[in-house]
């Protein structure tokens, strides 16, 4: 997020605070839906600013966001998305890279915090014995990293794409059918089973060592990944 987008985002958050509850709920659903539509961050914030201005004006007149959208919020969002150019290939690559380095930094930090090697190191430091400074990366770790990253991205995408129909969001005039609820229950159970399977397999694969690295080196890699994420967030995004 560059400086201009950050400033617009701050202004938009301030405007969002002035919305009444009904309009804020509708606005949250819409922004969620637009966030994953493959539009550049700059345009997302510009559209959000337009929508907030429109809604605050409507609020002054005693109208709601749903009314100015003609009753169909999702259809309105689809029209907006169709009217905007998609984000450029460069920006999409940078966004994917940003997600990847952030996941690597977070999961790396978790690995470091929860690994037995860290526990042994602390124990050695307390007892004054010779510390072991290496950390082992196993095939199971890599599988878990891939599964957790994919699951996190999948959950975010699913929630955002279904912003108007998930519990909490409002379906435009349609009742949520029993079939849909069962389908979602099935998807949830399937995802939980898949994650359980991944954890089971990764536990079995924990015996296969890929590499053994110095703990300080590993910590540097985690810090570097986080720094890259910060740099990518500060970059000046080239508009399409």
């Amino acid at each position: 997020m560059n400086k201009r987008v950050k400033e617009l985002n701050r202004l938009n958050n301030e405007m969002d605070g002035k919305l009444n509850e009904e309009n804020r709920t509708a606005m949250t659903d819409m922004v969620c839906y637009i966030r994953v539509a493959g539009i550049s961050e700059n345009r997302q914030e510009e559209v959000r600013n337009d929508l907030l201005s429109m809604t605050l004006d409507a609020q002054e007149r005693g109208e709601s966001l749903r009314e100015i959208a003609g009753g169909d919020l999702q259809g309105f969002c689809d029209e907006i998305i169709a009217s905007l150019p998609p984000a450029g290939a460069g920006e999409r690559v940078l966004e994917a890279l940003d997600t990847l380095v952030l996941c690597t930094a977070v999961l790396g930090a978790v690995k470091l915090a929860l690994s037995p090697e860290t526990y042994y190191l602390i124990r050695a430091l307390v007892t004054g014995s010779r510390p072991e400074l290496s950390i082992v990366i196993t095939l199971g770790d890599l599988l878990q990293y891939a599964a957790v990253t994919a699951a996190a991205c999948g959950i975010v995408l699913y929630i955002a794409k279904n912003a108007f129909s998930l519990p909490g969001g409002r379906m435009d005039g349609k009742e949520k059918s029993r079939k849909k609820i069962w389908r979602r229950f099935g998807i949830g159970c399937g995802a939980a089973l898949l994650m359980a399977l991944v954890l089971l397999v990764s536990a079995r694969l924990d015996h296969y060592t890929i590499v053994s690295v110095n703990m300080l080196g590993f910590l540097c890699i985690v810090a570097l990944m986080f720094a890259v994420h910060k740099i990518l967030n500060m970059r000046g995004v080239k508009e399409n």
Partner: protein
Amino acid sequence: MIPSQMLKGTLEGCILKVIGRSETYGYEITQQLRQYGFSEIAEGTIYPLLLRLEKNGLISAQYRQSALGPKRKYFSLTDKGIEELQCFSRSWMELENAVNQVMNSDRPSPPASGSRTEEIRGGNRDE
């Protein structure tokens, strides 16, 4: 009520005409269109069209402080927009003329090929 399929092709031209009269903003455009008979038009209907017109360089926007509430986005026609409006105006008159002739005619047979209606269809741009 005007069917949405019928509205689609003509609304952009009407918005250009309204903006062409004087610099204006979304809600005001909606109100003017309603006064002209587009009774079902909501502000949300024209917002995506304004985005598309802006993207295609037919209108330009400028933010101005409003007396009440947040800044408003005022639109004005660009040179390309003026040309497009003239083009739409010509096409509309030809189409109106052709449709009127069809509607008012008692003859069962269609007009000969290569008529002006063909030209209109060929010249209809979808940006």
